[in-house]
Every structure is written in structure tokens, then in C-alpha cells.
């Protein structure tokens, strides 16, 4: 697994060297979310009703922003071809990239979410489910996003295309992510929703790298 670990380290180092990336993603997350009180008005009752949705949707959009560069840099400078020839299977390399991506986007988003929830007047009972759903959901977002990024590699208007491809596939994650928080607030227990999020993650972990690697091989043909 040392090849895998080294690849994760490499991507992490690249991401952190560019420094601004994680900060920009979190910055967008916060800015987009606080647009809503300006848009719908600051009344606490209204905001608390839609807080779960706002946090999840803006987290989703923020995760989407950094996906385009997942494979772009390696593809442009030719190192993607070299990576494809490595002994470590391409699927494992995709998984390594997804892990690095999640550590630099999903994890910071989940960490910042409670602060935003405070600003958006989320009901106190929703905080545990908020954290749990984001921690379970954002890795799936990275995995599905990797498939989209691989498919749109080299396409015209790649960034917009990526969003078009990935957003419909994000909808189930969004539905159950918000559902978990609403269930937690309503006292019904977020368990079933979180289990479904976990099931989606369990499904995406083997399948997304498979699809993304196939798409990468086609891009390299």
C-alpha cells in the first residue's frame, strides 16, 4: 500500500503547496451560505427551517468547484500518462486522488459547517446529524465528482460540463444528507438516513474509481 500512500502524500503536498485551494473552497462555502439571509431575510424562524438545505447545497457546490482540477494538471503536463503506466492500478490511483481531494475539501467543509449552521440559526438538535451527514456524504461527493472530472477531461467548456454531469448524480446524497438533519431535529433519529448515506459511500468506493479509471484510459487513447 506504500504506492497508494505515496500518491496520496504527493497529491496532498501539491494541494497544500497551492495553499489557497482549501481556503478558497471554504471561503466560497461561507460566502455563498451567508448570501441567503440577505436574500430571504434574516428572520430566525425562516432561516432555521431552511438552514439544513442551505448548508448542504452550498457545501455541494463548493465541493464541485475544486473538481475540475482533479486530473487537469496531471493531464496537461503529461504526467497522467506516466501514472497510467505505474504498477499501481489506475483505479487505486483514482482512489488516492479522491482521498486527497476529500482531505482538502470535504473535511474542511464539514469542519466549517457547524459555524455556518450557527449563523443560519439551525436548531441545536440538528448539529450531530449535520456533522455526521457531511462526514459521510462529502467522500461520496468526491468519488462521484472524480467520475465527472475524468469524463470531461479535455472537453470544451469542461467546468460547466462537469457540473451538468455531476449534479444529477449528487441529488440522492443531498436528499439523504438533509433528511438526516431534519430527522435529527424532529426527534425521529437520523440513523436510517445516515445508514443510506453510508450505503451510498460503500457503493461509490469500488464503483467510482472503476468508472473514472475507464474514463481516464479513454482520455489517454
Amino acid at each position: 500500500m506504500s504506492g497508494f500512500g505515496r500518491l496520496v502524500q504527493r497529491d496532498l503536498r501539491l494541494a497544500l503547496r497551492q495553499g489557497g485551494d482549501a481556503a478558497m473552497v471554504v471561503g466560497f462555502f461561507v460566502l455563498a451560505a451567508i448570501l441567503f439571509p440577505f436574500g430571504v431575510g434574516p428572520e430566525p424562524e425562516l432561516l432555521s427551517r431552511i438552514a439544513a438545505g442551505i448548508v448542504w447545497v452550498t457545501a455541494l457546490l463548493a465541493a464541485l468547484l475544486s473538481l475540475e482540477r482533479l486530473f487537469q494538471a496531471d493531464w496537461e503536463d503529461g504526467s497522467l500518462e506516466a501514472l497510467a503506466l505505474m504498477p499501481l492500478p489506475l483505479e487505486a490511483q483514482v482512489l488516492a486522488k479522491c482521498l486527497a481531494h476529500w482531505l482538502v475539501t470535504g473535511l474542511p467543509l464539514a469542519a466549517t459547517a457547524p459555524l455556518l449552521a450557527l449563523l443560519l440559526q439551525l436548531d441545536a438538535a440538528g448539529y450531530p446529524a449535520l456533522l455526521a451527514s457531511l462526514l459521510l456524504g462529502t467522500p461520496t461527493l468526491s468519488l462521484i465528482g472524480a467520475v465527472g472530472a475524468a469524463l470531461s477531461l479535455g472537453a470544451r467548456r469542461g467546468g460547466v460540463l462537469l457540473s451538468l454531469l455531476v449534479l444529477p448524480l449528487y441529488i440522492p446524497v443531498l436528499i439523504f444528507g438533509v433528511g438526516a438533519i431534519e430527522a435529527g431535529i424532529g426527534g425521529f433519529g437520523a440513523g436510517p438516513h445516515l445508514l443510506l448515506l453510508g450505503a451510498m459511500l460503500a457503493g461509490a468506493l469500488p464503483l467510482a474509481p472503476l468508472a473514472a479509471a475507464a474514463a481516464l484510459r479513454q482520455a489517454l487513447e
Partner: protein
Amino acid sequence: MTLHRFANPARFMRLSSALLPWCGAAAAAFIAIGLYLALFVAPPDYQQGEAVRIMYVHVPAAWMASLVYALMALASAVALIWRHPLADIAALSAAPLGAGFTLLCLATGSLWGERMWGTWWVWDARLTSVLVLFFLYLGYLALVNAFDEPGRGARAGAILALVGIVNLPIIKFSVDWWNTLHQPASVFRLGGPTIDASMLWPLLVMALGFTLLFATLLMIRMRTALIEAKIRALMLSEIERHGAAAPRGAVTS
């Protein structure tokens, strides 16, 4: 493009030119009969009255929306595994047709729902998953047209089509897994159809008509795609010939 890549497509061109008139005529016939049955013969519903007649266009459109996507995914799998040149063309040709049926399903369903449920739209599991299906079609069409290199779009689209297949069981079973406003299955279910025969027959006739229409349109689009490929090959050989300053002459096909 070497010659043998056209060998199979040539057989398809011959087959489809023989089949097309029959397929088209059959489609027209079944749709005409279906319309007659749906509008004149089928009884009004005891609850919904005459509004139930929308079912005879809405349900076949819905069946086609899912069926076409399943066929697209199957063609994509064949294209990826066996690299059959016709499989790519089949998937590409089917996509706009499927999107059209899905749009029709959503629009007619909305009209029906406004009367029956009192709302033009509701975010229940069935409607949401069919809307997602529509966006999957649009995403597929955007992807296959987003590349300058001709084959790349079709190959990427094949993967996307297979990734989106998870949506089909969700559409089918959404009315069972969730409390939906949309009614549960009354035709394709384990115990057999619960719908009355006087309504089932017009439905099946219309569905068959839609399927034959789809087959006709698919063949037309595939023939068009093959002709376009031939045009590209001819133009390429023109350029090569002019570049080599070879003597001009009429092209033999």
C-alpha cells in the same frame, strides 16, 4: 477508416432500408388504433372521469423513457466491451429520442396531476427520479457533443450512460419504497396487472405504437449517422488525393 469497418454497417444499411417502411407503417397503424381506442372505446374512470384518457399518452411515454435509457446503457456496454462500431452509433442516436419521451412523460404527467392531485408538480420520489433521468439524458447529450475529437465523446458517453443506470431501479421501485403521491404500479407488478382489461388494451396498443415509432426513428438516425461517417471518410480521402496530386476521377462508392 479502413474498409472492413463499413462491412457491418453496410449490412445494417441494407436491413434497415428493408425494415423501415414496414416499421414506420406499423407504428402509424398501432398509434392510430391506439388513439381510437383511447379516445373513443376506453371507458371513463369512475373517479377521474375523462381525465383518465391522459394515461394513454403519459404511461407509454414513461415506459419509453426508461426503456430507451436501458437500451442506451446496453448499447454503451456493448460499445465498451466489444468495440462494435454500431453500438456507439445506436446509443448516440437513441439519446435525443429518450429525452423527448421523458419530456413528454413529465409534461403530460404534470397536466394529469394538476387535475388529479391539485398541483402541477410535487417532489415525490417518482417525479424526482424521472426528472433526474431527464437531466441524465441532457448530460449525456452535452458530453458526447463536447469533444472536438469525434470518437472521444461517444466513448465518454458510454461510461456516463452506464453510471446513470442506477437511476432506473430507483424510478421503477420509487413508488414502492417511498410514500409517494404518484400511484403504485398497476401493470408491471408481481401479481399481474390490476388495471381493467378495457383500459389495459388501449394502453398496450399505444405502448406498442410508441415502441415501433422509436424503432423507426432510431433506424433513421443510425442511417443518418452512418451516411455522415461515409461523408467524412470521402472528404478525408479527397484531401489526401488532392494533397498527393493524383489524377481526378469520379468516386466509386
